């Protein structure tokens, strides 16, 4: 079974530019989560999408946004890049709900996209 995939592996941008990161969840998973792993800060929750809707958002400014497509893949967009946005961005997916109930909240992680802002 293929795991969560992310692209690109590395992304180098300059301040003020926009970055787009992509994630494909495990087949059958409908929830996608985005986390930022900055040096020394651990993983910080960014966004959660489920069934095409944004369900929850971490403590990040609005220039961090995203969307989920009908095939459950997702994009994370970061506008007006700042130097401190340099980090590893991880995507995770979890199994779907059955009759509205989440059966398992284990999250499966992708390899990440390393974003460097110069």
């Amino acid at each position: 079974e293929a795991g969560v995939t992310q692209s690109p592996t590395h992304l180098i941008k300059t301040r003020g530019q926009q970055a787009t990161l992509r994630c494909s969840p495990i087949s059958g998973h409908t929830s996608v989560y985005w986390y930022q792993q900055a040096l020394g800060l651990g993983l910080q929750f960014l966004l959660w999408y489920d069934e095409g809707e944004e369900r929850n958002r971490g403590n990040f400014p609005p220039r961090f946004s995203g969307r989920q497509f009908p095939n459950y893949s997702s994009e994370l967009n970061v506008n007006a890049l700042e130097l401190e946005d340099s980090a590893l961005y991880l995507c995770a997916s979890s199994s779907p709900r059955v009759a509205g109930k989440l059966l398992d909240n284990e999250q499966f992680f992708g390899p990440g996209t390393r974003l460097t802002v110069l």
Partner: protein
Amino acid sequence: AQRVTQPEKLLSVFKGAPVELKCNYSYSGSPELFWYVQYSRQRLQLLLRHISRESIKGFTADLNKGETSFHLKKPFAQEEDSAMYYCALGYPRSNFGNEKLTFGTGTRLTIIP
């Protein structure tokens, strides 16, 4: 606010010695606690969770609600245990709308041969 604290950034242990990675949490309800591990050049993966009460790769973790702790333990360290370990707090599965993991800052465990 929910918080997970891993007080040790780095931990070095000799092969064969016991290992304990500390994790404390703050949450007013009944959380689910996880340990995730990231081996060198591999992705983050689940090691164990408190509800399964199982031992994975010789590791165990007991949820202590009184002390709000979920320390990870192994009686005899092996070289392949060297990795980055993250403690994470999840929310009750019925709590729709709050499905995220709150991670600690991680502990890098190095096993000395």
